[in-house]
């Protein structure tokens, strides 16, 4: 650019030193050229070099897929009655536990819901007196009790009833996850168990979303027998005075706990017949078909 400008100036100066007429015509041109040159150097210090266009290659983004497994089991036929609590404004829908109920029925276990069904998959709220009475009646006949995310706390009388039920050999299964409003610890703490509030996540290895963690480390126990890997959806950790049954890997973190430590989404209490599970939806179709969830 500078070379062409100097050529132009040279041409103008040649004109200026020509005839008088040319000189008269050329002087304004010369002034204009000098003006433009000064302006150029006053206002412009360089040129803009646009960065290269970034190729984002969106087409290379892959669609994540889950590892489905077909669960086959020859059910061991037993008998007995299992009660599922629906009397504490429990936050679950009967369709969420359909695979659990089916599996129990396959084993010859009778499933009875404690509560008054609404017809929409939920249960009506009950007074504390009616609830206590119903709990006492049901537990008298039952061999097992399942409590899923109660929104109403267990009263001291109810805790005592369940405590005596467990002492006599009754089995208790506590299920909840940190995404639901729940008062499960009012019962769990009676057995040395505590459901932690943070949601577990894994940014490295997960099923579709970081909240869907894989668990592949299990302690030997009849419950974890034949499990090699399960996927838990929005699970929480459990603290227990008893043995943990499964623990998470080093990439799994909690939204509440800072630092890396193993979390236990599955644990027993010090009494052998109380089991706590920190996730609900792993057994909900179609998530019950992922890995060993079934």
């Amino acid at each position, binding site marked *: 650019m500078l070379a062409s400008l100097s050529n132009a100036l040279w041409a103008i100066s040649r004109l200026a030193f020509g005839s008088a007429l040319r000189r008269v015509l050329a002087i304004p041109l010369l002034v204009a050229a000098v003006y433009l040159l000064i302006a150029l150097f006053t206002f412009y210090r360089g040129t*803009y070099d646009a960065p290269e266009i970034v190729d984002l290659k*969106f087409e290379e983004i892959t669609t994540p897929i889950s590892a489905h497994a077909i669960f086959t089991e020859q059910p061991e036929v037993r008998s007995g009655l299992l009660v599922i609590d629906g009397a504490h404004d429990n936050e679950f829908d009967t369709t969420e536990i359909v695979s659990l109920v089916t599996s129990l029925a396959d084993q010859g276990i009778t499933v009875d819901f404690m509560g008054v069904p609404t017809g929409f998959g939920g249960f009506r709220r009950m007074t504390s007196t009616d609830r206590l009475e119903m709990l006492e009646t049901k537990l008298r006949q039952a061999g097992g009790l399942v409590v899923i995310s109660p929104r109403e706390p267990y009263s001291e009388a109810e805790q005592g009833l369940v405590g005596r039920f467990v002492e006599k050999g009754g089995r208790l299964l506590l299920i909840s996850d940190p995404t639901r409003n729940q008062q499960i610890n009012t019962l769990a703490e009676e057995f040395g168990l505590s459901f932690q509030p943070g949601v577990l996540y894994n940014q490295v290895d997960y099923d579709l979303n970081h909240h869907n963690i894989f668990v592949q480390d299990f302690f030997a126990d009849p419950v974890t027998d034949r499990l090699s890997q399960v996927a838990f959806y929005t699970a929480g950790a459990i603290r227990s005075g008893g043995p943990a049954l499964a623990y998470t890997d080093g990439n799994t973190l909690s939204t509440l706990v800072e630092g890396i430590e193993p979390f236990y989404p599955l644990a027993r209490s010090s009494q052998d017949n109380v089991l706590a599970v920190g996730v609900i939806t792993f057994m909900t179709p179609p998530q019950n078909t992922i890995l060993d969830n079934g």
Partner: protein
Amino acid sequence: MGSSVFFFGYPGKPKIAVIEIPFTVINDRSSFEIGAMLDYVRDDGSIKGVVISLNTPGGGAGPSEELYFEIARLREKKPVVVMMEDLVASGGFMMAMAANHVMAKPSSFVGDVGVILSPLPSIIPSRPSDREGVTGPFKLEGGSRRHFVTMTEQLRQAFARIVLSERGGKLRTTKNEILEGNLYTGVEAMQVGLIDSLGGQTDAIAKAASLAGVANFDLVDVNTEVSRVFNQKLERINGPVRFESGLSGGFGAAEIFALLNGATAGVSDETSTLLRDLIDGDSGSLLTLPPPGEASAPSPPMRCPTVF
């Protein structure tokens, strides 16, 4: 005297444009308005560099991506510096990634990389009705819950790709850490390489000028200029205008675009009144972006709106 005429009167004096985006949720409307300002600076040859002063919590995925691509195109012609004010989160952060240089204040809150897709369909799909004919099992909800979770993951990866590609080797943190969706202060963002420098608006203007290779420049207030052009075009419209757009109680890009282009027919009385209220109101200009409360008015309801 001569030098004053020279410095102030020279017609080819370069300009640096300043676009002010006060606290704004990025939705179709604000994206259209910001887009109009970007068009203005792109088409004005005397504007050699652009500073976008940005304050946004993010917004819709589509409008945020639109602005990202618009700024990326503008960057091919002239340098763009984004000055992050109090908050530049999510979709706003995506938009800022297209700039040549990203600047924040030490106390700015920036980042929040990620996507929210809500509400997700319930795990158990709704029951089909024998009173309704639908052509596919997921026609009503758009897919199963797991399908939507899969889509969320794809959008997350797409956002990550933008941040990683644009920041490239400047990043001093991992992809997973960015994707946690944290907000960073300006100081932290500088430390992890999510922004280029800390400073104020004067620094941003100086940086734009430096990138453009200009000195002794004028500043252009693009918000004022664009609303002036808009008002001039609107003044040419005489008499009632009619536009059967089917919109009720609101107006969209089509109406504004029609008015910007001098259309004299086709806009309903209701829409025309709304537009005039905006022009004659306290704001004095359509292109003065609305305050937080009004700006966050949700877009028309969708089954699963995607939000950055």
